[in-house]
């Protein structure tokens, strides 16, 4: 990731996936793939608890989940 104090930053898909994985494990005790699959199929108990992660996943070229 680029240095702080700029208005803009760049991340790689691998960095995004790492952030999603760490956050999904910390919040829901599940993988990022499982979190996004459950989100897509309506099986997350409270999808709003990961609204910021859903927003971040929007940067991915391809969705993690099918």
């Amino acid at each position, binding site marked *: *990731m680029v240095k702080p104090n700029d208005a803009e930053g760049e991340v790689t898909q691998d960095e995004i996936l790492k952030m999603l994985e760490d956050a999904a494990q910390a919040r829901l005790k599940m993988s990022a793939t499982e979190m996004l699959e459950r989100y897509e199929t309506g099986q997350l108990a409270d999808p709003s608890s990961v*609204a910021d992660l859903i927003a971040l996943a929007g*940067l*991915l070229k391809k969705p993690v989940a099918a």
Partner: protein
Amino acid sequence: MDRDPRAFRELLTLLLRITVLQKHHPGPRLWRAVDGSPDHWEIGGLATPLEPLPIRNGKFLRVAIDLFLDHGDRDYLKVATSSFQYQVDQDPNTKAWVFRYDYLRQPTPQAHPSAHLQINARPILDGVLPDRTPLDRIHFATRRVPLEGAIRVLADEFLVECAQPAEIWRPVLSEAERLFARIAHEPPLGPE
């Protein structure tokens, strides 16, 4: 909002700087994936997209906005998801959050309103929630609340000191809200 994500980020930074943002903080950052979708951006934290922003009472506001160019609508820049969460510490995964306004343009299969407020608290009355559902899992339907709404709650209800006097920041927020109301997508208040 037109087509420029940088202008949108600058507007949000202005709104935060004249109100609740911690002094000298540069504000939210516009993120993109170098090898990801070329038409998506996220407005988020400074060091990482998930990092909450420090505010002037020593607590934090997590700002997460997913922006995309809508090629089906004149390439206008639109918000796919927004989430504004007031929280006690800087941990992106904290359980110490106070309230959160969310908006999801794409309806979820769950029967939750696409725009809603959640509050991390306990009811003072017994037996008012179904099946022991905690209050923080209740989604209070709202109209779509922009960042300005979260700022107003912090300033007017939580009494977070603002950088500028109210005579300055209130008209700026009001004008931004008028512009938002003219173009904002408003989801239904619940599933259709």
